[in-house]
């Protein structure tokens, strides 16, 4: 079997196992947390009697392992179940229905950010390596380090203040819905995307720069230089192919962050992504929704890491022929 294919299959298998473990851990932690869905929803209105009635209605009066088995049985059949919210009525809210639009929004924002941020940071990183220790290098470094060191909500407030309140170029609210058209969606999501770009560029840029500079010291780069290859060409043709592995890892890491870790930006811009959904679901102990979100997040990490590894293998032929 082709080694890449073999790795992929192996990793996917392990990934499934990881997902199973994640689901058990999440379920157990939710059980350990004090309070339940009924208490969380009814708040001060939770008397023992109303809580018992609520739990009966949504089936929370049954033992935990029964509920888990029922849930995982559904998942194996491709059914993620129903949110506890509104479960008492005749129109139930299925988890997939609840998550789909929000997941789309999250991927939309992540993609929009990635399309700008990844090429930008690669370009900045390669240029920084090329003109190491120049004024350009220093300025790029200090600017990106400043933006990564500033909390994202603060960047968000600053952008909002300057570009939505002082100058009304953008909206302060990024509320989008299913009926929002593509252009409007992009326009509404612009400020959050800029915020996230500012947050992730530094990491990818610095890694690109560091990986290249590391390679510049290696003997074959010296050889290239000695035989008269121009510096620019040497970096792009000789150094960059060998630097792809660490860069891909960092890019994968940042892309994963864009999917799973942007709840603060979502809250500040009121962007209906999946992060806010999961936070709400955790605080109200809405188990089916929490589980589905957790599985999506775990799967995102697994798949992105897998693709980073595949990139490393493909760009480094030595890994294709392990001894």
């Amino acid at each position, binding site marked *: 079997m082709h080694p890449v294919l073999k790795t992929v299959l192996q990793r996917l298998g392990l990934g499934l196992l990881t997902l199973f473990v994640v689901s058990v851990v999440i379920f157990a932690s939710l059980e350990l947390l004090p309070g339940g869905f009924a208490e969380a*929803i*009814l708040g001060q*209105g939770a008397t023992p009697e109303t809580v018992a009635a609520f739990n009966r209605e949504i089936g929370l009066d049954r033992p935990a392992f029964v509920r888990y088995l029922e849930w995982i049985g559904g998942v194996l059949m491709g059914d993620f179940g129903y949110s506890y919210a509104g479960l008492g009525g005749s129109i139930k809210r299925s988890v997939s229905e609840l998550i789909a639009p929000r997941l789309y929004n999250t991927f939309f924002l992540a993609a929009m950010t990635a399309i700008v941020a990844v090429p930008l940071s690669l370009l900045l990183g390669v240029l920084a390596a090329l003109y190491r220790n120049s004024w350009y290098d220093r300025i790029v470094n200090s600017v990106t380090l400043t933006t990564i060191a500033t909390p994202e909500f603060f960047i968000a407030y600053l952008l909002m203040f300057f570009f939505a309140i002082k100058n009304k170029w953008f909206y302060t609210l990024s509320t989008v*819905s299913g009926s929002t058209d593509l252009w409007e969606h992009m326009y509404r999501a612009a400020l959050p995307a800029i915020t996230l770009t500012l947050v992730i560029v530094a990491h990818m840029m610095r890694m690109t720069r560091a990986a290249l500079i590391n390679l510049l010291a290696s003997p074959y780069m010296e050889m290239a230089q000695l035989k008269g290859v121009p510096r620019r060409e040497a970096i792009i043709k000789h150094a960059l192919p060998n630097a792809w592995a660490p860069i891909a890892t960092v890019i994968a890491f940042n892309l994963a962050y864009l999917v799973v870790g942007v709840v603060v930006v979502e809250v500040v811009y009121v962007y209906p992504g999946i992060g806010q*959904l999961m936070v709400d679901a955790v605080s*109200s102990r809405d188990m089916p929704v929490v589980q589905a979100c957790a599985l999506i997040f775990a799967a995102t990490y697994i798949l992105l890491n897998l693709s980073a590894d595949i990139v490393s293998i493909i760009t480094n032929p030595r890994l294709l022929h392990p001894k």
Partner: protein
Amino acid sequence: MTEFEMKMNAAKKAVGLGKLSRRDFMSFAIASGMTIPAASMLFASAARAQPKQGGVFKAGIGHGQTTDSLDPATWSNGFTFSWGKSVMGAPLVQVNQKNEAVPHVAESFEPADGAKKWIFKIRKGITFHDGKTLTADDVVATINYHIGPDSKSPAKGVLSNLVSAKADGPDTVIFELSGGNADFPFLLTDYHLSMYPSEGGKIMWEKGIGAGPYVLKSFEPGVKLVGERNPNYFGTTYFDGIEVLSIIDVAARTNAYLSGEVHYIDRADVKTIDMVKSAPETELYNVSGFAHYTAPMHCDTAPFNDVNVRQAIKWAINRQDLVDKILYGYGSTGNDNPLSPSMKYAINAEPVYAYDPEKAKSLLKKAGLENLKVDLSASDAAFPGGVDAALLMAEHARAAGIEINVVREPNDSYWDNVWLKKPWGLCYWGGRPTADAFMSISLAADAAWNDTRWQNARFNELLVAARAETDEAKRQAMYAECQQLVHDDGGQIVLMFNNYVGALSTKIGHTEFNSDFDHDGGFMYERWWMA
């Protein structure tokens, strides 16, 4: 009133009705000696004062979760509560600006049999959003949904004395109570109790079809609700549509207001309120309501089982300091009487608790204690700034020889594990329409929410007697005594009454605000208009 004032008022009224142009009004005003800017402003406010139809009202609300549901039994936050008041739902009875119960879906109501029985006539010709006619059966089904054995509704506690609701013909409903209650119509103003269409005795809430002023167009939990004017609404409403956004983050909410994306935000940040106040075309929504922050002590647990200790603690807290530092002045001090001064029957019990460490010390001595060490469970879940308030209280009480150890509890499960369980903690209470409703749920000996575990025989006797008493003067005296007892003997420390603070664009017109709840008592969607 002088002749000029009378003429001026007439002119303003004419402007409001659109009968007097700006030009004519200005020339009249200037002729009577007014400056141009003053006259211009007066014109704008006069033009705003008369309600008119049209426009889409956008509100940014600091509540709302992805778990919010259209199920009326689960409404509990600032986003959902108004649905039953003035969005999709219409209640039997509304509360007006003077805190009186006025019939709404009901046409009239009258007590019988010593207020043990209430006869409600239902307004004829009301239709639900789907065109079905509202009948007495729908009313009965709605009420039963909340009081039935399988009910999870918080309204079940509110209606605990209600034995049955029965239809008597198509437009009469008879409520039977287990004991007389002269305030029963007020209980039906609870926001969970809005009317829904029913089939076979079961209500159908799933599609959000009610009889209220707005037809539900779309609802995304935790994000947005869009409503369109119900053309067949039996009451009066002005906006063509409403858009309600859930904006949890206070800075984002403020920004949304400042950039003009919404007309109104609730729960404005009092720390940065000056920024909002100085924004153009802004009116501060600042209403002192019934809501208050408390620090309940368990009267059955040492050391709080000694009334002298309870009083010592009451004297050892500087409430004015709390109002200044926690509410930034947007509120008023509490006097351990949970009834807001604007409520019917409320008294200001003597002596008014103020900060007096010496008095606290002497009371402690009376209890046989030199000094006192107590734990106070605090969390921001109890009210915003709860932990800071507790730390301030610890600072105040030190001067009286009381050492308060502030225990920081997690926000997440505060209501499950701390409130009602720890001997001394923090809590908040929202509005309840009547003295009886409030005392019955939070101070009566058998109340599920008796968070001070206070068992005062005289108080409980008075409470039941006053409920059925229809002689106003006697009732007034009974409630006064009740409040005095709570004030002197109870374990409830009412720290402060917090104002509802928000920002409202002057593009929106309104009349006097309700004080029982935020959002004009939940009626803003129905009562406000686009000026």
